[in-house]
Protein backbone atom coordinates (compact mmCIF):
# COMPACT_ATOMS: atom_id res chain seq x y z
CA UNK A 1 0.00 0.00 0.00
CA UNK A 2 1.24 3.44 -0.91
CA UNK A 3 0.93 6.54 1.26
CA UNK A 4 -1.56 8.99 -0.20
CA UNK A 5 -1.47 12.78 -0.27
CA UNK A 6 -3.98 15.53 -0.89
CA UNK A 7 -2.56 17.86 -3.51
CA UNK A 8 -5.53 20.01 -4.38
CA UNK A 9 -8.75 21.28 -2.84
CA UNK A 10 -11.68 23.26 -4.11
CA UNK A 11 -15.17 24.17 -3.05
CA UNK A 12 -18.10 26.27 -4.14
CA UNK A 13 -19.84 28.57 -1.74
CA UNK A 14 -22.52 26.64 0.14
CA UNK A 15 -26.07 27.91 0.37
CA UNK A 16 -29.07 28.60 -1.81
CA UNK A 17 -27.29 28.93 -5.12
CA UNK A 18 -30.24 29.58 -7.39
CA UNK A 19 -28.35 30.25 -10.60
CA UNK A 20 -26.13 27.15 -10.48
CA UNK A 21 -27.20 23.69 -11.59
CA UNK A 22 -25.90 20.41 -10.20
CA UNK A 23 -23.35 20.12 -12.97
CA UNK A 24 -22.31 23.79 -12.60
CA UNK A 25 -21.55 23.21 -8.93
CA UNK A 26 -19.69 19.95 -9.48
CA UNK A 27 -17.52 21.41 -12.21
CA UNK A 28 -16.73 24.60 -10.28
CA UNK A 29 -15.46 22.65 -7.27
CA UNK A 30 -13.53 20.21 -9.47
CA UNK A 31 -11.83 22.95 -11.51
CA UNK A 32 -10.78 24.80 -8.36
CA UNK A 33 -9.24 21.60 -6.96
CA UNK A 34 -7.44 20.87 -10.23
CA UNK A 35 -6.16 24.44 -10.39
CA UNK A 36 -5.02 24.17 -6.77
CA UNK A 37 -3.10 20.99 -7.65
CA UNK A 38 -1.57 22.63 -10.73
CA UNK A 39 -3.07 19.98 -13.00
CA UNK A 40 -4.06 20.46 -16.60
CA UNK A 41 -6.58 17.63 -16.37
CA UNK A 42 -4.84 15.12 -18.58
CA UNK A 43 -3.10 13.60 -15.53
CA UNK A 44 -6.36 12.46 -13.88
CA UNK A 45 -6.96 8.71 -14.20
CA UNK A 46 -9.92 8.20 -11.86
CA UNK A 47 -12.94 10.01 -10.45
CA UNK A 48 -15.20 9.34 -7.48
CA UNK A 49 -18.33 11.37 -6.81
CA UNK A 50 -20.19 11.40 -3.52
CA UNK A 51 -23.88 12.16 -3.97
CA UNK A 52 -26.88 11.08 -1.97
CA UNK A 53 -29.94 11.64 -4.06
CA UNK A 54 -29.60 13.36 -7.39
CA UNK A 55 -32.24 10.90 -8.56
CA UNK A 56 -34.84 12.54 -6.37
CA UNK A 57 -33.42 16.08 -6.15
CA UNK A 58 -32.92 16.64 -9.87
CA UNK A 59 -34.33 13.42 -11.31
CA UNK A 60 -30.88 12.55 -12.66
CA UNK A 61 -29.10 9.30 -12.00
CA UNK A 62 -25.81 8.35 -13.65
CA UNK A 63 -23.91 11.17 -11.97
CA UNK A 64 -20.50 9.59 -12.65
CA UNK A 65 -20.91 9.93 -16.40
CA UNK A 66 -22.45 13.39 -16.08
CA UNK A 67 -19.57 14.83 -14.09
CA UNK A 68 -16.91 13.04 -16.13
CA UNK A 69 -18.49 14.50 -19.26
CA UNK A 70 -18.75 18.11 -18.08
CA UNK A 71 -15.32 17.96 -16.44
CA UNK A 72 -13.92 17.14 -19.87
CA UNK A 73 -12.87 13.65 -18.78
CA UNK A 74 -15.25 11.70 -20.97
CA UNK A 75 -13.23 12.20 -24.14
CA UNK A 76 -10.31 10.59 -22.30
CA UNK A 77 -12.58 7.81 -20.98
CA UNK A 78 -11.59 8.39 -17.34
CA UNK A 79 -13.54 5.98 -15.10
CA UNK A 80 -16.03 7.83 -12.86
CA UNK A 81 -17.88 6.20 -9.98
CA UNK A 82 -20.73 7.61 -7.94
CA UNK A 83 -20.88 6.65 -4.24
CA UNK A 84 -24.07 6.81 -2.14
CA UNK A 85 -24.24 6.37 1.62
CA UNK A 86 -26.76 9.08 2.58
CA UNK A 87 -24.95 11.77 4.60
CA UNK A 88 -21.67 9.84 4.41
CA UNK A 89 -21.60 9.76 0.60
CA UNK A 90 -18.79 12.33 0.31
CA UNK A 91 -16.61 10.87 3.07
CA UNK A 92 -16.89 7.38 1.67
CA UNK A 93 -16.18 8.60 -1.88
CA UNK A 94 -12.99 10.11 -0.44
CA UNK A 95 -12.09 6.81 1.21
CA UNK A 96 -12.69 4.89 -2.05
CA UNK A 97 -10.35 7.29 -3.83
CA UNK A 98 -7.71 6.90 -1.11
CA UNK A 99 -7.90 3.12 -1.55
CA UNK A 100 -7.64 3.43 -5.35
CA UNK A 101 -4.43 5.45 -5.06
CA UNK A 102 -3.00 3.45 -2.14
CA UNK A 103 -3.49 0.20 -3.99
CA UNK A 104 -1.68 1.43 -7.09
CA UNK A 105 -4.76 1.11 -9.28
CA UNK A 106 -4.79 4.87 -9.88
CA UNK A 107 -2.27 7.69 -9.58
CA UNK A 108 -4.15 10.95 -9.83
CA UNK A 109 -7.72 10.77 -8.59
CA UNK A 110 -10.25 13.53 -8.17
CA UNK A 111 -12.97 13.12 -5.53
CA UNK A 112 -16.03 15.28 -5.78
CA UNK A 113 -19.03 15.60 -3.52
CA UNK A 114 -22.10 17.46 -4.68
CA UNK A 115 -25.77 17.97 -3.91
CA UNK A 116 -28.29 20.32 -5.48
CA UNK A 117 -31.11 20.44 -2.93
CA UNK A 118 -33.02 23.63 -3.66
CA UNK A 119 -34.55 22.50 -6.94
CA UNK A 120 -37.28 20.72 -4.94
CA UNK A 121 -39.64 21.89 -2.18
CA UNK A 122 -38.67 21.73 1.49
CA UNK A 123 -41.22 18.95 1.95
CA UNK A 124 -39.59 16.92 -0.80
CA UNK A 125 -36.18 17.55 0.77
CA UNK A 126 -37.42 16.27 4.12
CA UNK A 127 -38.84 13.18 2.44
CA UNK A 128 -35.46 12.55 0.80
CA UNK A 129 -33.69 12.95 4.15
CA UNK A 130 -36.20 10.50 5.63
CA UNK A 131 -35.12 7.94 3.04
CA UNK A 132 -31.78 7.70 4.88
CA UNK A 133 -33.73 6.01 7.69
CA UNK A 134 -35.36 2.59 7.41
CA UNK A 135 -38.06 3.60 4.93
CA UNK A 136 -40.32 0.66 5.73
CA UNK A 137 -40.12 0.65 9.52
CA UNK A 138 -39.24 4.22 10.47
CA UNK A 139 -40.25 6.75 7.79
CA UNK A 140 -43.45 4.86 6.96
CA UNK A 141 -44.47 5.16 10.60
CA UNK A 142 -44.49 8.95 10.29
CA UNK A 143 -41.06 9.29 11.87
CA UNK A 144 -38.85 11.98 10.33
CA UNK A 145 -35.07 12.07 10.16
CA UNK A 146 -35.04 15.06 12.53
CA UNK A 147 -37.33 13.25 14.99
CA UNK A 148 -35.01 10.24 15.14
CA UNK A 149 -32.20 12.57 16.16
CA UNK A 150 -34.61 14.28 18.56
CA UNK A 151 -35.30 10.90 20.16
CA UNK A 152 -31.56 10.36 20.56
CA UNK A 153 -31.32 13.83 22.11
CA UNK A 154 -34.23 13.16 24.47
CA UNK A 155 -32.62 9.91 25.61
CA UNK A 156 -29.23 11.60 26.09
CA UNK A 157 -30.82 14.32 28.22
CA UNK A 158 -32.71 11.64 30.17
CA UNK A 159 -29.50 9.70 30.82
CA UNK A 160 -27.77 12.95 31.82
CA UNK A 161 -25.18 12.63 29.05
CA UNK A 162 -25.85 16.20 27.95
CA UNK A 163 -28.15 19.07 28.89
CA UNK A 164 -30.41 20.95 26.50
CA UNK A 165 -28.23 24.05 26.85
CA UNK A 166 -24.98 22.15 26.25
CA UNK A 167 -26.46 20.62 23.13
CA UNK A 168 -27.52 24.07 21.91
CA UNK A 169 -24.00 25.39 22.48
CA UNK A 170 -22.83 23.08 19.68
CA UNK A 171 -24.74 25.30 17.24
CA UNK A 172 -23.28 28.44 18.84
CA UNK A 173 -19.79 27.00 18.29
CA UNK A 174 -20.47 26.12 14.66
CA UNK A 175 -21.94 29.55 13.91
CA UNK A 176 -19.02 31.34 15.59
CA UNK A 177 -16.66 29.53 13.24
CA UNK A 178 -18.96 29.82 10.23
CA UNK A 179 -18.84 33.59 10.61
CA UNK A 180 -15.15 33.37 9.76
CA UNK A 181 -15.55 31.14 6.69
CA UNK A 182 -16.26 33.06 3.48
CA UNK A 183 -17.65 29.91 1.83
CA UNK A 184 -20.15 29.14 4.64
CA UNK A 185 -23.89 29.38 4.16
CA UNK A 186 -24.36 31.26 7.45
CA UNK A 187 -21.64 33.75 8.29
CA UNK A 188 -23.24 35.07 11.43
CA UNK A 189 -22.50 34.29 15.07
CA UNK A 190 -25.51 33.44 17.27
CA UNK A 191 -26.11 33.21 21.01
CA UNK A 192 -27.48 30.37 23.08
CA UNK A 193 -30.93 31.93 23.35
CA UNK A 194 -31.31 32.01 19.59
CA UNK A 195 -30.94 28.22 19.59
CA UNK A 196 -33.12 27.62 22.64
CA UNK A 197 -35.94 29.92 21.51
CA UNK A 198 -36.06 28.82 17.88
CA UNK A 199 -39.25 27.29 16.51
CA UNK A 200 -39.56 23.55 17.05
CA UNK A 201 -38.73 21.06 14.33
CA UNK A 202 -38.90 17.86 16.34
CA UNK A 203 -39.04 18.47 20.08
CA UNK A 204 -36.52 18.88 21.73
CA UNK A 205 -34.72 19.95 18.54
CA UNK A 206 -35.49 23.39 17.18
CA UNK A 207 -34.63 25.08 13.92
CA UNK A 208 -31.13 26.07 15.12
CA UNK A 209 -30.31 22.51 16.17
CA UNK A 210 -30.60 21.42 12.54
CA UNK A 211 -28.33 21.91 9.55
CA UNK A 212 -29.90 23.87 6.69
CA UNK A 213 -30.88 22.81 3.19
CA UNK A 214 -27.96 23.68 0.94
CA UNK A 215 -26.54 23.53 -2.54
CA UNK A 216 -22.85 23.05 -2.97
CA UNK A 217 -19.93 20.96 -4.13
CA UNK A 218 -16.40 20.29 -2.92
CA UNK A 219 -13.50 18.41 -4.45
CA UNK A 220 -10.03 17.19 -3.56
CA UNK A 221 -7.25 15.71 -5.68
CA UNK A 222 -5.20 12.76 -4.44
CA UNK A 223 -1.97 11.23 -5.58
CA UNK A 224 0.72 8.94 -4.13
CA UNK A 225 2.66 10.81 -1.43
CA UNK A 226 5.95 10.22 -3.21
CA UNK A 227 4.62 11.98 -6.34
CA UNK A 228 3.01 14.86 -4.47
CA UNK A 229 5.91 17.32 -4.64
CA UNK A 230 5.69 17.19 -8.42
CA UNK A 231 2.37 19.06 -8.20
CA UNK A 232 2.47 21.07 -4.99
CA UNK A 233 4.92 22.12 -2.34
CA UNK A 234 2.23 21.87 0.34
CA UNK A 235 0.82 18.32 0.22
CA UNK A 236 -1.14 16.96 3.18
CA UNK A 237 -0.79 13.30 4.02
CA UNK A 238 -3.82 11.03 4.43
CA UNK A 239 -2.78 9.27 7.63
CA UNK A 240 -5.78 6.92 7.62
CA UNK A 241 -9.36 6.51 6.48
CA UNK A 242 -11.67 4.01 8.17
CA UNK A 243 -15.31 3.18 7.65
CA UNK A 244 -17.87 1.27 9.73
CA UNK A 245 -21.52 0.22 9.46
CA UNK A 246 -24.34 -0.17 11.95
CA UNK A 247 -28.00 -1.14 11.71
CA UNK A 248 -30.04 0.91 9.28
CA UNK A 249 -32.88 1.50 11.76
CA UNK A 250 -32.12 3.30 15.00
CA UNK A 251 -34.50 1.06 16.96
CA UNK A 252 -32.34 -1.96 16.18
CA UNK A 253 -29.50 -0.59 18.32
CA UNK A 254 -28.57 -1.76 21.78
CA UNK A 255 -27.73 1.79 22.73
CA UNK A 256 -28.90 4.94 20.96
CA UNK A 257 -26.76 7.38 22.96
CA UNK A 258 -23.59 6.41 21.14
CA UNK A 259 -22.87 5.69 17.49
CA UNK A 260 -20.99 2.39 17.56
CA UNK A 261 -19.96 2.93 13.95
CA UNK A 262 -18.15 6.14 14.93
CA UNK A 263 -16.41 4.35 17.78
CA UNK A 264 -15.33 1.51 15.49
CA UNK A 265 -14.20 3.73 12.60
CA UNK A 266 -12.33 6.05 14.98
CA UNK A 267 -10.57 3.17 16.68
CA UNK A 268 -9.33 1.86 13.36
CA UNK A 269 -8.43 5.31 12.06
CA UNK A 270 -6.32 6.14 15.13
CA UNK A 271 -4.66 2.74 14.96
CA UNK A 272 -3.77 3.02 11.26
CA UNK A 273 -2.46 6.55 11.79
CA UNK A 274 -0.60 5.37 14.89
CA UNK A 275 -1.93 8.26 16.98
CA UNK A 276 -4.45 8.81 19.76
CA UNK A 277 -7.47 11.06 20.09
CA UNK A 278 -5.45 13.55 22.14
CA UNK A 279 -3.17 14.14 19.14
CA UNK A 280 -6.03 15.65 17.13
CA UNK A 281 -5.77 19.45 16.96
CA UNK A 282 -8.68 20.13 14.63
CA UNK A 283 -11.75 18.09 13.77
CA UNK A 284 -14.71 18.38 11.45
CA UNK A 285 -17.64 16.40 12.86
CA UNK A 286 -21.04 15.60 11.40
CA UNK A 287 -23.38 17.97 13.26
CA UNK A 288 -26.42 17.59 11.02
CA UNK A 289 -28.17 17.98 14.38
CA UNK A 290 -26.52 19.46 17.47
CA UNK A 291 -26.89 16.16 19.33
CA UNK A 292 -24.93 14.38 16.61
CA UNK A 293 -22.08 16.81 17.17
CA UNK A 294 -22.05 16.10 20.90
CA UNK A 295 -22.13 12.33 20.31
CA UNK A 296 -19.27 12.64 17.81
CA UNK A 297 -17.02 14.40 20.33
CA UNK A 298 -17.53 11.50 22.74
CA UNK A 299 -17.51 8.64 20.28
CA UNK A 300 -14.30 9.93 18.69
CA UNK A 301 -12.69 9.95 22.14
CA UNK A 302 -12.05 13.70 22.03
CA UNK A 303 -14.01 14.02 25.30
CA UNK A 304 -15.22 11.55 27.89
CA UNK A 305 -18.82 10.39 27.83
CA UNK A 306 -20.93 12.97 29.64
CA UNK A 307 -18.27 15.68 29.37
CA UNK A 308 -18.49 16.77 25.74
CA UNK A 309 -21.47 19.06 26.28
CA UNK A 310 -19.79 20.96 29.07
CA UNK A 311 -16.60 21.25 27.01
CA UNK A 312 -18.53 22.83 24.14
CA UNK A 313 -20.32 25.15 26.55
CA UNK A 314 -16.94 26.19 27.98
CA UNK A 315 -15.51 27.03 24.56
CA UNK A 316 -13.05 24.15 24.53
CA UNK A 317 -13.91 23.31 20.92
CA UNK A 318 -13.41 26.85 19.63
CA UNK A 319 -10.22 27.76 17.78
CA UNK A 320 -7.75 28.19 20.64
CA UNK A 321 -9.53 25.62 22.82
CA UNK A 322 -8.48 22.06 23.62
CA UNK A 323 -9.44 20.85 20.15
CA UNK A 324 -10.93 23.08 17.48
CA UNK A 325 -14.13 21.53 16.15
CA UNK A 326 -16.01 22.50 13.01
CA UNK A 327 -13.81 25.45 12.19
CA UNK A 328 -15.55 25.59 8.81
CA UNK A 329 -18.87 26.18 10.55
CA UNK A 330 -19.76 22.51 10.47
CA UNK A 331 -22.89 21.21 8.80
CA UNK A 332 -24.88 23.72 10.84
CA UNK A 333 -23.28 26.94 9.59
CA UNK A 334 -21.14 25.95 6.59
CA UNK A 335 -24.21 24.20 5.18
CA UNK A 336 -25.00 20.59 4.36
CA UNK A 337 -25.33 19.80 0.67
CA UNK A 338 -25.50 16.17 1.62
CA UNK A 339 -23.11 14.48 -0.80
CA UNK A 340 -20.66 17.40 -0.62
CA UNK A 341 -20.31 17.45 3.16
CA UNK A 342 -17.80 14.62 3.59
CA UNK A 343 -15.52 16.15 0.97
CA UNK A 344 -15.98 19.68 2.34
CA UNK A 345 -14.73 18.38 5.69
CA UNK A 346 -11.53 17.14 4.02
CA UNK A 347 -11.13 20.52 2.29
CA UNK A 348 -11.35 22.31 5.66
CA UNK A 349 -8.91 19.98 7.41
CA UNK A 350 -6.48 20.34 4.50
CA UNK A 351 -6.70 24.14 4.75
CA UNK A 352 -6.00 23.94 8.47
CA UNK A 353 -3.01 21.63 8.06
CA UNK A 354 -1.61 23.79 5.27
CA UNK A 355 -2.07 26.92 7.37
CA UNK A 356 -4.58 28.42 4.91
CA UNK A 357 -7.51 28.85 7.27
CA UNK A 358 -7.05 32.58 7.75
CA UNK A 359 -8.99 34.00 10.73
CA UNK A 360 -10.06 30.58 11.92
CA UNK A 361 -6.58 29.04 11.65
CA UNK A 362 -5.64 26.57 14.38
CA UNK A 363 -1.97 27.26 15.14
CA UNK A 364 0.55 24.50 14.42
CA UNK A 365 -2.00 21.79 13.79
CA UNK A 366 -0.33 18.47 13.06
CA UNK A 367 -3.29 16.10 12.87
CA UNK A 368 -6.80 16.83 11.71
CA UNK A 369 -9.80 14.49 11.67
CA UNK A 370 -13.02 14.35 9.66
CA UNK A 371 -16.06 12.35 10.76
CA UNK A 372 -18.90 11.91 8.29
CA UNK A 373 -22.15 10.10 9.13
CA UNK A 374 -24.83 8.48 7.00
CA UNK A 375 -28.33 8.07 8.43
CA UNK A 376 -28.61 7.87 12.21
CA UNK A 377 -25.09 6.47 12.57
CA UNK A 378 -25.66 3.64 10.10
CA UNK A 379 -22.50 4.43 8.12
CA UNK A 380 -19.56 6.40 9.46
CA UNK A 381 -16.24 7.27 7.91
CA UNK A 382 -13.39 8.76 9.93
CA UNK A 383 -10.35 10.09 8.11
CA UNK A 384 -7.19 11.51 9.65
CA UNK A 385 -4.91 13.92 7.83
CA UNK A 386 -1.36 14.84 8.79
CA UNK A 387 0.62 18.00 8.09
CA UNK A 388 3.98 17.22 6.53
Amino acid at each position, binding site marked *: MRDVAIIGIGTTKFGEIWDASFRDLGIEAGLKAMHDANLTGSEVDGMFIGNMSSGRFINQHHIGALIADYAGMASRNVPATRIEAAGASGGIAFRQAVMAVASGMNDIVIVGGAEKMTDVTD*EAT*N*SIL*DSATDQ*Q*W*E*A*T*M*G*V*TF*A*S*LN*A*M*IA*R*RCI*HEKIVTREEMASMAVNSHAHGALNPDAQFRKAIDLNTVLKA*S*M*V*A*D*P*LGMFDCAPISDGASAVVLCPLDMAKKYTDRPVKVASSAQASDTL*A*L*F*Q*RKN*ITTFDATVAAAKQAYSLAKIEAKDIAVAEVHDHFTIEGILALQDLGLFKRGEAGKAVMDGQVMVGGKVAVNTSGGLKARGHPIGATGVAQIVEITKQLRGDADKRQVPNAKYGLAQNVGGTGSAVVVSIMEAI
Partner: protein
Amino acid sequence: MSVARHWRETPGRYNLIGVKCGNCGKVFFPKRTLCPECRRSSMGKMNAYKLKAEGTVFTYSIIHDAPAENNSIKPYAVAMILTDDDVLITGQLVDVELEKVEIGMPVRAVLRKMSEDGETGVINYGYKFAPKN
Protein backbone atom coordinates in the same frame (compact mmCIF):
# COMPACT_ATOMS: atom_id res chain seq x y z
CA MET B 1 -46.07 3.34 -1.73
CA SER B 2 -47.23 0.60 -4.02
CA VAL B 3 -49.99 -1.69 -2.82
CA ALA B 4 -47.79 -4.79 -2.88
CA ARG B 5 -44.95 -3.15 -0.99
CA HIS B 6 -47.20 -2.50 1.99
CA TRP B 7 -49.28 -5.66 1.64
CA ARG B 8 -46.33 -8.04 1.93
CA GLU B 9 -45.44 -6.49 5.30
CA THR B 10 -48.91 -6.77 6.82
CA PRO B 11 -48.04 -9.51 9.35
CA GLY B 12 -45.52 -7.12 10.90
CA ARG B 13 -47.69 -4.04 10.44
CA TYR B 14 -50.94 -5.52 11.81
CA ASN B 15 -49.75 -7.97 14.42
CA LEU B 16 -46.13 -7.09 15.27
CA ILE B 17 -44.95 -10.41 13.91
CA GLY B 18 -41.17 -10.58 13.91
CA VAL B 19 -38.84 -13.55 14.23
CA LYS B 20 -37.14 -15.50 16.97
CA CYS B 21 -33.80 -17.14 16.25
CA GLY B 22 -34.14 -20.89 16.76
CA ASN B 23 -30.44 -21.00 17.56
CA CYS B 24 -29.90 -18.31 20.24
CA GLY B 25 -33.48 -17.37 21.10
CA LYS B 26 -33.10 -13.66 20.34
CA VAL B 27 -36.17 -11.85 19.03
CA PHE B 28 -36.02 -9.42 16.11
CA PHE B 29 -38.50 -7.01 14.61
CA PRO B 30 -39.17 -6.65 11.74
CA LYS B 31 -38.54 -10.15 10.45
CA ARG B 32 -35.13 -10.90 9.02
CA THR B 33 -33.74 -13.93 7.24
CA LEU B 34 -30.55 -14.20 9.26
CA CYS B 35 -29.79 -13.79 12.96
CA PRO B 36 -27.10 -11.10 13.18
CA GLU B 37 -25.57 -12.97 16.13
CA CYS B 38 -25.66 -16.53 14.79
CA ARG B 39 -25.62 -15.78 11.04
CA ARG B 40 -25.18 -19.07 9.13
CA SER B 41 -26.23 -21.32 12.00
CA SER B 42 -29.57 -19.48 12.16
CA MET B 43 -30.47 -20.22 8.55
CA GLY B 44 -33.89 -21.81 8.28
CA LYS B 45 -34.43 -21.34 12.02
CA MET B 46 -35.79 -17.81 12.09
CA ASN B 47 -39.30 -18.59 13.26
CA ALA B 48 -42.26 -16.22 13.27
CA TYR B 49 -42.72 -14.60 16.67
CA LYS B 50 -45.53 -12.29 17.75
CA LEU B 51 -44.21 -9.45 19.90
CA LYS B 52 -46.01 -8.50 23.08
CA ALA B 53 -48.32 -5.62 22.23
CA GLU B 54 -47.48 -3.75 25.43
CA GLY B 55 -44.44 -1.83 26.51
CA THR B 56 -43.11 1.51 27.70
CA VAL B 57 -41.88 4.69 26.04
CA PHE B 58 -38.07 4.49 25.73
CA THR B 59 -37.72 7.91 24.10
CA TYR B 60 -39.95 10.22 22.08
CA SER B 61 -40.21 13.38 20.05
CA ILE B 62 -43.02 15.74 19.13
CA ILE B 63 -42.90 16.39 15.41
CA HIS B 64 -43.70 19.97 14.38
CA ASP B 65 -42.09 19.91 10.95
CA ALA B 66 -44.15 17.07 9.49
CA PRO B 67 -44.00 15.11 6.26
CA ALA B 68 -46.60 16.33 3.72
CA GLU B 69 -48.93 13.41 4.37
CA ASN B 70 -49.02 14.20 8.11
CA ASN B 71 -49.29 17.97 7.80
CA SER B 72 -52.92 17.95 8.84
CA ILE B 73 -52.22 16.22 12.16
CA LYS B 74 -49.15 18.15 13.35
CA PRO B 75 -47.88 18.42 15.99
CA TYR B 76 -47.82 14.70 16.74
CA ALA B 77 -45.76 12.36 18.87
CA VAL B 78 -43.45 9.56 17.79
CA ALA B 79 -41.63 7.21 20.10
CA MET B 80 -39.37 4.26 20.44
CA ILE B 81 -41.18 1.66 22.50
CA LEU B 82 -39.50 -1.04 24.55
CA THR B 83 -41.96 -3.92 24.36
CA ASP B 84 -42.48 -6.25 27.29
CA ASP B 85 -40.33 -8.81 25.47
CA ASP B 86 -37.48 -6.27 25.43
CA VAL B 87 -37.58 -5.35 21.76
CA LEU B 88 -37.34 -1.74 20.59
CA ILE B 89 -39.79 -0.60 17.96
CA THR B 90 -40.59 2.81 16.51
CA GLY B 91 -44.05 4.22 15.91
CA GLN B 92 -46.48 7.05 16.50
CA LEU B 93 -48.04 7.76 19.87
CA VAL B 94 -51.76 8.45 19.63
CA ASP B 95 -54.70 9.32 21.90
CA VAL B 96 -52.45 11.21 24.25
CA GLU B 97 -52.11 14.85 25.32
CA LEU B 98 -48.70 15.76 23.94
CA GLU B 99 -47.60 17.51 27.14
CA LYS B 100 -48.26 14.32 29.10
CA VAL B 101 -45.92 12.07 27.10
CA GLU B 102 -42.95 10.91 29.16
CA ILE B 103 -40.21 8.31 29.14
CA GLY B 104 -41.38 5.16 30.93
CA MET B 105 -45.05 5.74 30.11
CA PRO B 106 -46.88 2.40 29.61
CA VAL B 107 -48.39 1.96 26.16
CA ARG B 108 -50.07 -0.70 24.05
CA ALA B 109 -50.08 -1.30 20.32
CA VAL B 110 -53.22 -0.37 18.40
CA LEU B 111 -54.11 -0.74 14.74
CA ARG B 112 -54.54 2.63 13.04
CA LYS B 113 -54.55 4.19 9.60
CA MET B 114 -50.95 4.94 8.73
CA SER B 115 -51.34 6.58 5.35
CA GLU B 116 -53.66 6.76 2.41
CA ASP B 117 -52.84 7.17 -1.21
CA GLY B 118 -54.93 10.30 -1.73
CA GLU B 119 -58.72 10.30 -1.60
CA THR B 120 -59.16 7.46 -4.04
CA GLY B 121 -56.14 5.25 -3.30
CA VAL B 122 -55.59 2.41 -0.91
CA ILE B 123 -55.56 2.99 2.87
CA ASN B 124 -52.61 1.51 4.73
CA TYR B 125 -53.07 0.26 8.28
CA GLY B 126 -50.44 -0.53 10.86
CA TYR B 127 -49.38 -0.30 14.48
CA LYS B 128 -49.26 2.82 16.55
CA PHE B 129 -49.10 3.08 20.31
CA ALA B 130 -51.69 4.44 22.73
CA PRO B 131 -51.50 4.94 26.50
CA LYS B 132 -52.27 1.70 28.29
CA ASN B 133 -55.60 1.78 30.05
